[in-house]
């Protein structure tokens, strides 16, 4: 926080180059130092994500680690009703992929400084945020809304880390059920596709290496390399070593060249060590 700024910031919002508004944030009312939140309306050229509507989403930078999604939601409720809050460790589009995981299996998020996407119910709230005076800080931890940090938080975390085995078993079972279903569907689909293909080709049946019904081996890099290597080996086996006089001579020549190269290498290594003064015995 630039101290010079504080002085002549009357109840004016502070906008910095780049279009970000600076909000100050303090942990509780006794805190002396403040963090700055940098906020701006969410603006991306190519995003069609439905859960970050462009006109109602606020992009927030530099959210301290002790602010969870709930805390951020409450902090911004003073500007209007908040629909959802999403915290991430770096800005970017969402890439939700794969099946939804239960909370036991989700990787734990980073506890550092976050960026947030706050979605308001109304777009007017965005202007309210941006015109919030700079010297009135948002307060994280208040009487009504205590935020746990330190030892309290760790004890809570430890307590919450317990999972009842039955619950865990249930999660696993339901996931595996889904997985198996998914697998079966996939197999079904492939089979259907294969049949379709067969029918499509006007009575021509494609003959593959495996016997009928088995799916062809998926192409893989490793398999490609294996074949190449096999070819090389075959070629090598046919070669004759040291058979002709010229071959023998060549081998000898190679040997001397090898020795020479090693000699040169050693010489260089020594020069290097000498330069670093590595030969002083004491």
């Amino acid at each position, binding site marked *: 926080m630039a101290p010079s700024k504080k002085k002549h910031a009357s109840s004016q919002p502070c906008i910095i180059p780049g279009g970000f508004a600076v909000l100050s944030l303090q942990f509780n009312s006794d805190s002396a130092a403040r963090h700055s939140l940098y906020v701006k309306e969410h603006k991306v050229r190519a995003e069609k994500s439905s859960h970050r509507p462009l006109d109602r989403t606020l992009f927030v930078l530099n959210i301290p680690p002790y602010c969870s999604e709930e805390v951020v939601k409450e902090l911004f409720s003073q500007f209007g009703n908040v629909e959802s809050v999403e915290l991430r460790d770096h800005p970017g589009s969402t890439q939700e992929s794969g099946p939804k995981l239960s909370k036991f299996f989700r990787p734990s998020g980073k506890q550092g*400084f976050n960026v947030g996407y706050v979605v308001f119910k109304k777009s007017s709230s965005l202007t309210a945020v941006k015109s919030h005076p700079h010297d009135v800080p948002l307060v994280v931890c208040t009487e009504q809304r205590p935020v746990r940090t*330190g030892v309290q938080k760790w004890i809570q975390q430890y307590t919450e880390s317990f999972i009842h085995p039955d619950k865990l078993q249930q999660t696993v079972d339901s996931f595996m059920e889904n997985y198996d279903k998914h697998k079966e569907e996939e197999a079904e689909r492939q089979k259907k596709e294969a049949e379709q293909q067969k029918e499509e080709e006007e009575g021509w049946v494609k003959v593959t290496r495996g016997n009928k019904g088995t799916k062809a081996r*998926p192409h893989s*890099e490793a398999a490609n390399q294996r074949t190449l290597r096999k070819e090389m080996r075959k070629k090598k086996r046919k070669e004759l070593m040291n058979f002709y006089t010229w071959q023998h001579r060549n081998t000898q020549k190679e040997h001397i060249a090898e020795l020479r190269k090693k000699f040169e290498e*050693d010489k260089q290594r*020594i020069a290097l060590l000498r330069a670093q003064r590595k030969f002083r015995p004491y």
Partner: protein
Amino acid sequence: MILSDSFHEEEENEAPVKAKRTKPDAGEEEEVVYHPVKLSRNDLYRPPTAEELNQLKEAESLFHCSLLKMQMGELLKEVALSERRKQQIDSFIQTVTKLLQTVPDSPEVEVSDLSWLSGTVKVPFLLLPKITKGKFHMAPPASIDLIGSYPLGTCTKPHVMVDLAVTIPADVLHPKDVVNQRYPRKRALYLAGLAQYLTSSSDIGTMRYSCLHGNRLRPVLLLTPPDKNSSSFTVRVHACPPPGFFKPSRFHPQRNNIRTEWYTGLQTSYSESSEPPTPHYNSSVLGDLLPRTHLQFLSAISSQCSAFADGVALLKVWLRQRELNQGTGCFNGFLASMLMAYLLTTHRISNTMTAYQLLRNSLNFLASTDLTVNGISLARDADSTPTLAEFHSAFQVVFVDPSGHLNMCADMTACTYMQLQHEASVSMQFWDNPTVDGFHSLLMTPKPMIRTSDHVFQLCELVKLQSSCKKLNLLSELMDHSGNYVHTALPFILSLLQRGLDQRIQLLTHSLSPDPEVRKIDKQTEFRQLWGLRSELRRFQDGAITEAVLWDGESMCQKRLVPKQIITHLLQLHADIPESCVRYVGHSFNPCFALQVPSTGEEKSLAVVQSYDDLSRKLWRLEGLPLSITAVQGAHPALRYTQVFPPKPLKMDYSFFDKEKTCRSLVPKEGKPCPAYITPITVICHMEGSGKWPHDRLAIRHIRAAFHIQLGELLRKHHKYTCRPCPTHLDVWKDGLAFRIQVAYHREPQVLRESVNPEGLLVVRDNEEAQALEMATIHKPLLTSTLHGLQQQHPCFGAVCRLAKRWLGAQLFSDDITEDSADLLVASLFLQPAPFTPPGSPQVGFLRFLHLLSSFDWKNNPLVVNLNNQLTAADYTEIKNGFMASRESLPVMFIATPKDKKLSMWTRRAPNVQMLQRVMMVAAESLKVLEQQLMDGNQIQDVKVVMRPPLEVYDAVIHLNPKQVPLLSQAVDPPSVTFSRGVMTGSAAQSGGSLPVIDYNPVSLYLAELREAFGDLALFFCDPYGGTVIAVLWKPKAFSPVPFKTSQVSARSVKVTGDEANTVPNVEAILEDFQIMGKGLVKSVEARTEKWSF
């Protein structure tokens, strides 16, 4: 604090020293970087000349590679005297010679009359007894000659000594002066006279007296040049009688030249022929007569063999690194030249050999010849000189000079020679080992005593030795040594200890296998004599009744102290040396782990391993699992005896905790001190591979969770263990210890690596996740079992590891040199000890660890740890070549193991260059402080000095509340206040009960949060073993203002100047965040520097 001061000095001093060194060859110093050699085709394949062919062939057959040959060449260049230095020496010698020739005559006085000397000049001689007959006067020397190594060309740096022989004119001496120390006294007076004359001259720098090789009968005068390079060389002035002045036959080792009557001042009944012989006195006088002839002899040899000087220089370096050329009765450079001359004259070395071969052959000769039994002689004609047998009866080590009269090893004790022999044979062993850097171990690594021997005993208050001389009845020997009671008593005490300790190994194992030697009846009386009252008759388990001594020692660390008990007992009994005079340095590190005196916790490790073995057996026997278990492996330092503080079985006090209802577990209570920390001991449980395993990363994780639940269920049902399954692991509470079982599937890393690219091709790409998994489930268990094996071979391996890791922790380096890398570093000390032998005590191991850390050349060499001896010479070359080829991209600290030849996975994450640099510096400093402290009898032994790091260098210090630091009692200096941590005394319950609080350590949780939040702004350091401070170091780079970017604003505040917005770290808020995030744990945050205010 000593440490902190010296650190700063070090940093300051570094710069000028470097600058000075680089000055002479600044041209070639410039950035020499290793490039792979590129020779053009023409160069490589041009037809070789005969000479080149010879050279290449020689390099191939004689050396492992031409590298060794070149290295030796470079070393010789470093120790040889430069031409400039030689000129300096020559000119100084000329001035000194000129000065000495003008020494004025003085009137003749009685020998005992010292009034002619001015008060400032002392006589370098102990004038006891006071009365001597004879006359003395000063006169200019008859001749002044250079002798010794300088004219011979074998003089080496550092400590260049130039020997100058000044011949006392014949009229000062009398042929009968040999008797009763008359000659040595006159010699000393003559030196004092020279010194008195030289003090007035301005051409001489400093002047000191010294004794030649510690022999007080042969004082010498040391002169240095006056100018600033005074330390570069020293001239040693010897006073000698004219050649042939005394008859050599007078100095036969069986003749007496000091009369008892004169020496004791009492009337004795000895006739001249029955007086006790004085061989040491004789040889020291004779030594003065011969230096010129020795020089002639050696010059003749040297002129025949071109590599003689270089060979001697190498041998001298070898001796010096082993501290064999220092002190009384050492194997000095002169003996080295003489030894080589002997080998040349007896045709064991041919004149055409190279310096490398000369060194090798001399070491081979030393290793295979025992001069204490079969002495050697350089004398040509054996008549009229004493026989070797006569020499052997008078001296312990025999090496006769060319004249045949002088034993050049007169002062050497058998033990010194044994040490020499031992060193030579060790050197020969590793010389041929292609996996050892022979050159480095042979000639570059210093071997000081404290780092070589497992136990070091020091005798303080040497005055007490006087009484031991009396007790051992050594009057005539004392006379021979002219009253030097230390030299007199030494051989006797050594042989006494030799006898005592030889038996030690048999005695230690007495209850198991009494050695037949002990049982022999004729030995019994001797045995009883040796051990005195401590000896008693004991009946052994096999029924044999023998004489034995029982040493007490219950724990491992006490057993290590048995040699101390033996030595103090023997010395007390036979040599009248009280226990208080024996200073033993070997157990001084025990306080570092002393939670409960007097144990060092090695037994606790054993208990943990036993409990684990039991668990593993039970896991194997479990029935009802869908897939069978294929392996159970431990993956925790406690299971290889290297955990600094091994976990100890605990019994919990339930009332101290809150309870968690669903899982019957204890939970820490707010407001109470943090509960005792329970380390989870990781156990990896490999399941059988089967088609039933899914081929999908998420599905595998869920299946593993299912296995954890099922394992826990079975263990609870069959063995009543309290279990807590999680998706990632299963915690088992057993015997008061917590085990963390992780199920592993061997194909999982492979599945993690596979992915399908857009073209539909299955590609295999390495990634972090797969590596981490492999590390946890494959490499760590393997390392644990391998090191467990190493501990079985070397019982003190674990203790050294623990000491090393305690030091790293205390110096706040735990995060940079991880536990596994530290264990590997220590393992390398045991697996490749050259030039030492594997450490036999924790202390010597720790000192070598520090030396390894501080001196290893990480930039140019990989550290190869040959676990299980799996690597061959070819592997070594492969590792080295791979290392050289891609040095830049490899970790700074490169450790290769048989399973990891290319990547150094254990050190990939840390340390970085700066931290390694600091670790090296601190290690060097710690080593210096420790060695000084351990070797200096007057200092108080407080080895913890090296465990208290200075905190001045850090920018901020976070003080923690000791109440919330669960490992407080492990601190280097544990505070006097202790907190109740919910642990009851008494033995731990077998099984069942509530699950205690496992792996809950607020300090490490806090550190993890800090690093996650501020890792790019600062570094955090903390001693994991009970440290109550966290030291913070700002990263200088993070503090320069950067333009406002959405990806780089964490904890930064904006400064707007015109159109530009720059950000700098918001330090006030960060410091407050330290408080907020560690609420309850942090006592205070102290900002030390003002670095951030620009």
